[in-house]
């Protein structure tokens, strides 16, 4: 039997899926690696640990699951998290750790640029909002704050390119990941001179740009032998996690959008045109030259509910956080829509879209004497979803959206999915397979292998699992609360900065 292996190099773990040629998952394995936070704004990972973890997990999946089933691996496709940056010297040896998307060290650099005309020019050329997550801002930060490392750097790579370089010897980057670096011109598909100049580097310091279907890099013989893979196994460079999740969510049709909520979250649509947002809030990342994934990312996803669970969940009997979360959800379901007047701003980690304010902070508003723990639980969930709604509304200014597909951790909780349907007043579906990134990588590989005519046809094969219809009355109530939510954010912008300064004084 032939199989397609999708390797997802995520923020916290590598997840590897094996599919048969019909798209059924026939194997799965994952391995976790840590993120190090040396300072409040630092977020780094060990590149060699990511590499070794990937090798271990792949080897285990092959030996424990695929080879006993007599599977032959036809191709391996890669997904990578966006906005990661690794510096390597002339020998390809890492100079320090991978700087992840969550690293905020460049926030001052980003604020300065965002306010300028240059920032607008770069945003319009690259599609990446000006933010410390962007590789361009990270490189500029390194140039100003770590000149020694900047000087020694021969190449700037995302973690996926580093892994591929070790496996194949080729130093390449796909258009999709490249368009999230803030350094690639999404119109010309070349490294953008203005962005390069701002970062202070030349195009030679970056990997070679290739399409997401690129499959000319060959696995080194030693890895072929160690993994017992065929010499002709195809290595497909693949795409970014966000673009593949959108592809795997089956939202290709006009009027559809997808919501992903894992640790962080995103609201995305796919189309053939770039969305021009004069507020520079919406990202436009290439999947292919003709297909652009647009939307907004939020820091305020599942990690916020995990925070609430850890701090206020009951752990006397339950050992696992999942068990405690389940109990909290059941408690929240006892409260009516709107949490009896309690609102939550979920900005515990600052926020990206739509407000793009790294200083934003969390807030419970409207607390009265009758509120109990269960109100706070529901308000926390609703706050996370109001935030998602505010991103969706920004996008709806540019494109009509009739229905939503939800994936990630919240998709498996019907209580949350129903709230999404009610807040948005749109039907919400969940997909039948568990992981949209893996499914996206499968669809991309299958298209490259000629099983589908194009990505649109591939994405249309995605089957929906469950549909949640909106309740008009509940939507009307949520509208009233959302008005207060929006108004609050607008009014306390200055206070976010003030409280952030006070917190940083400690």
């Amino acid at each position, binding site marked *: 039997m032939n199989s397609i292996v999708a390797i997802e190099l995520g923020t916290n773990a590598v997840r590897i899926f094996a599919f048969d040629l019909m798209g059924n998952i026939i194997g799965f394995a994952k*391995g*976790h690696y840590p993120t190090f936070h040396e300072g409040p704004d630092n977020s780094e990972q060990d590149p060699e*640990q990511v*590499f070794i973890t990937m090798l271990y997990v792949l080897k285990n999946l092959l030996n424990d699951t695929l080879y006993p089933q007599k599977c032959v691996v036809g191709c391996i496709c890669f997904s990578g998290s966006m906005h990661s940056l690794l510096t390597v010297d002339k*020998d390809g*040896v890492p100079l320090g750790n991978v700087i992840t998307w969550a690293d905020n060290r460049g926030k001052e650099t980003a604020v300065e640029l965002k306010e300028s005309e240059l920032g607008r020019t770069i945003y319009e050329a690259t599609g990446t909002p000006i933010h410390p997550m962007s590789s361009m801002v990270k490189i500029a930060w390194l140039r100003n704050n770590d000149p020694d490392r900047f000087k020694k750097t021969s190449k700037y790579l995302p973690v996926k390119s580093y892994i591929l370089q070790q496996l194949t010897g080729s130093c390449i980057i796909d258009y999709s990941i490249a368009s999230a670096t803030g350094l690639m011109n999404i119109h010309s598909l070349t490294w953008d001179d203005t962005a390069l100049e701002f970062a202070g580097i030349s195009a030679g310091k970056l990997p070679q740009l290739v399409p997401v279907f690129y499959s000319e890099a060959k696995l*080194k*013989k*030693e890895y072929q032998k160690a993994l017992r893979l065929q010499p002709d196994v195809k290595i497909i460079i693949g795409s970014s996690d966000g673009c593949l999740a959108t592809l795997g969510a089956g939202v290709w049709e006009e009027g559809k959008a997808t919501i992903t909520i894992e640790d962080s979250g995103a609201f995305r649509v796919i189309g053939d045109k770039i969305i021009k947002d004069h507020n520079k809030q919406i990202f436009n990342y290439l999947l292919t030259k003709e297909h652009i994934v647009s939307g907004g990312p939020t820091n305020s996803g599942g990690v916020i509910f995990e925070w609430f669970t850890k701090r206020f969940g009951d752990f006397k009997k339950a050992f696992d956080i999942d068990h405690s979360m389940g109990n909290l959800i059941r408690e929240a379901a006892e409260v009516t829509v709107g949490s009896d007047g309690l609102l939550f701003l979920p900005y515990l980690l600052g926020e990206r879209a739509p407000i793009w304010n790294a200083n934003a902070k969390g807030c419970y508003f409207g607390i009265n004497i009758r509120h109990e723990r269960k109100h706070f639980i529901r308000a926390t969930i609703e706050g996370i979803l109001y935030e998602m709604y505010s991103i969706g509304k920004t996008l709806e200014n540019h494109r009509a959206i009739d229905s939503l597909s939800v994936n990630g951790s919240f998709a498996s909780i019907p209580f949350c999915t129903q709230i999404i349907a009610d807040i948005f007043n749109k039907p919400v579906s969940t997909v039948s397979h568990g992981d949209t990134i893996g499914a996206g990588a499968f669809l991309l590989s299958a298209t490259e292998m000629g099983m589908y005519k194009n990505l649109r046809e591939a994405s249309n094969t995605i089957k929906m699992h469950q549909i949640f219809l909106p309740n008009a009355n509940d939507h009307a109530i949520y509208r009233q609360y959302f008005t207060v939510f929006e108004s609050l954010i607008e009014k306390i912008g200055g206070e976010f900065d003030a409280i952030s300064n006070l917190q940083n004084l400690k």
Partner: protein
Amino acid sequence: MNQLLLQQETSKELADFPHIKEFAYKKNTTIQLNSFNVGLMDGIGIYYVLEGKHNWVIGSTEHTLYPGDIAVILPGENFGGKNNILNIGSLMWVRLDVHSRKQLIGDWSQLTKKERHSLEQILSVNKDLLVLNIKEAQPLFFELKHELQHAEVGFSTRVAQLLDHLFIIICRQLIRQNHSRRDFPTTFLRLEQTLRQNLARQWTVEEMAAFAGMGTTAFTEKVKNYSGFSPLNYLINLRITEAIKLLKRGEVNVTDIALAIGFYSSQHFSTTFKKLTGYTPSEFRKNNLTFNQQQ
């Protein structure tokens, strides 16, 4: 209350307890220079603060202790007052003889061998974190004092029980303080950092589990669920990760790398490395350092 200083060989109260080198209750009303010099701990010392604010050097770190705090000083650790002075306040302590640096709890203990081993591991892998707030230690110290002074029937057993009790509450508090059961990822990250700092050590699953404050079965299951690896495979993962970095630096020879990261021999390292990567360590180094030519 009267102060007390019982010392082995000079105090008849300790005649039946050769493992207790010293037991003391001290009230310090004035600060005197050179009254508490920093020196190496002989045996294991457990110090409990009753009153006052105390600045002590333990190991290579300075700590400030307040009433209710307990400090455990392991054999060979530096210990004494900052600037060699004992601050105003009152303290109780007990110093115990040890068989070796690994066997911290002697045969006087009534704990099972397995329990003793487990407590010793918890203390040794957490040696940088052995200042804790344990208010319930106070009655134990006072009862210990009473038993040693009054030698009532059964006092010998009672003293052993109290010392065992003291070790148990210290280890339990250490686990509770360092590892929240609701946040395994944080515990795991701490373990990962400790492993990375001590890769040459021959870690056992029992030692890793003790660090996380769990039994080996629960720990193994938790690690597998969380990381996708068994604890020992995770450790090998870290060792190979470090090996790759050292190989790429190209300065250290392969045998030295093998020993530095905890493999028994360069052959053991080479076999494990090749199994995963397809390269011997030397081939990997050669391949990597010709990166430029391949481009």
